[in-house]
């Protein structure tokens, strides 16, 4: 072992830590921490309210009934609280929306990132962003007044309220979200990767599909997760155009209520404050949160699995 004796030293004022510099650093750090904590705090508060209001509900309705009963009739004389009747509506409309939005959004992203000229891209992007800004209530009436009547021309038995029309419109609404997030991640793929593919004699399409898409996959998956959350949480479109009748069905041509459209109908004042019906919206809200959360977790795992370094 090597023992070195320590030498006596002093701290010269020049090298000493400066109080003012330290203080400013600390303040900045604290400010940043506060902003980050704020988001966490709000989320926690929301979960707290949902859970605390849902607890009395579950003292009346067993978890088993809640998750297995397929009838949801809180304002009938024979009350049922089977969340599946709402979950089915949420899942069906979400699925239709994704069926529309994922292909369209991905293709749009690929086009904008790999094919469009600078000028075309700069024209299309603002239009897409405009679409993001359209209030959902407008989309709702668009589904009810335009899309459903149009679909009725093809399929005359379609009822005025159905899940297909609003599902499709919801999909259209989500396209720009997917396109924009996926395009950002594709554009972030280094040019060197593209040059490598072109240098091998690849066409634009081959480069886009076989190199850029896999390289950007984690961002693309993130875009899909965002889309799912957006679809699951969408309220106005389905409340307006899908009917608000809870209905345990996965048939897109039937009318149904989703978790969100149920919550909004209660919020609009059908049920009295404080009663079990009122509490049921918190149980429904909690279910919605759990659904979104689990989609996010699955998506996060998928992203990790696909994550590519370059």
């Amino acid at each position, binding site marked *: 072992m090597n023992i070195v004796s320590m030498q006596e030293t002093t701290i010269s004022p020049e090298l000493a830590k400066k109080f003012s510099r330290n203080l400013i650093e600390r303040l900045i750090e604290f400010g940043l921490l506060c902003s980050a904590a704020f988001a966490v705090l709000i989320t926690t508060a929301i979960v707290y309210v949902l859970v605390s209001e849902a607890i009395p509900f579950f003292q009346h309705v067993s978890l088993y009934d809640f998750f297995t009963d397929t009838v949801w009739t809180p304002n009938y004389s024979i009350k049922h609280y089977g969340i599946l009747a709402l979950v089915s509506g949420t899942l069906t409309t979400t699925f239709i929306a994704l069926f529309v939005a994922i292909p369209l959004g991905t293709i749009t992203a690929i086009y904008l990132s790999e094919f469009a000229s600078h000028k075309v891209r700069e024209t299309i992007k603002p239009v897409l962003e405009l679409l993001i800004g359209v209030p959902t209530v407008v989309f709702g009436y668009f589904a009810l007044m335009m899309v459903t009547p149009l679909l009725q021309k093809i399929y005359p038995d379609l009822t005025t309220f159905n899940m297909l029309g609003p599902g499709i419109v919801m999909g259209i609404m989500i396209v720009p979200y997917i396109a924009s997030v996926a395009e950002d991640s594709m554009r972030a793929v280094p040019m*060197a990767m593209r040059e490598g593919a072109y*240098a*091998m004699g690849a066409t634009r399409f081959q480069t886009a599909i*076989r*190199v850029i898409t896999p*390289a950007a996959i984690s961002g693309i998956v993130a875009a899909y997760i965002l889309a799912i959350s957006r679809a699951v949480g969408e309220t106005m479109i389905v409340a307006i155009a899908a009917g608000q009748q809870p209905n345990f069905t996965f048939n897109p041509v039937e009318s149904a209520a989703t978790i969100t459209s149920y919550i909004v109908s209660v919020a609009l004042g059908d049920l009295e404050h404080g009663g079990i019906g009122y509490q049921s919206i918190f149980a429904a809200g909690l279910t919605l949160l759990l659904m979104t959360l689990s989609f996010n977790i699955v998506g996060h795992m998928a992203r990790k699995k696909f994550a590519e*370094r*370059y």
Partner: protein
Amino acid sequence: MVAKNKHNEIIKAESRDLNFFYADGTQALKNVSLPVYENKITALIGPSGCGKSTFLRSFNRMHDLYPGNRYDGQIILYPDNTNILDPKVDPIEVRMRISMVFQKPNPFPKSIYENVAYGLRVRGESNARVLDEKIEEALKGASLWDEVKDRLQDLAFNLSGGQQQRLCIARALATDPEIMLFDEPTSALDPIATVNIEELMSSLKDKLSILIVTHNMQQAARISDYTAYMYLGELVEHDKTGTIFTKPSKKETEDYITGKFG
């Protein structure tokens, strides 16, 4: 048509009065006329920014990827005797025959196997036996086979930098190119990996012609048969590597080589 020089060496391709303009108007090449000999290594040297990469990238029409770039002049590919810069020539066909290895290894986000298979798949090859064979051959050609043969399905990013660069060489080799372009292929690598790549390039010239950009003069001296010295977008001088490094005919070349300048 076969073109030859006075030493009876076959010319594989040559630029004639090549000028190149970037989209912003920068003229990066001025009347460059330079042959690339078959089964020889031609090295491009010169200070940073003198147009070496620009010249190299003209050979596989890389500049076409960016709008507004403009070529003026010819690059003739033999034996076709075709000006590959002609707008009627399909750049994809050119790239199928003239492949390129970049300064920084740029493997695709795929397995080792799929990286090498890429060029073959692009050409429509899907027969598993043919692919297996070609990939083994290319990896052997790039002296990488022994290191990766047991993990062909691993992600290419898990390889070291030097291995990644050899993978990129294997990828370029798999499609049997006639010319290979190297743009400072060892500048991002450590000395041992550099030696590997240099040996590899020397072994490749039996099969193809090589044009390499290097800012490392010793490297040019070690591996190349011909050396061209460029300065400010112009070709100052080109000759046999031995001649350039021992008795260059231009004062500027001598100054650069002896380190008086650059």
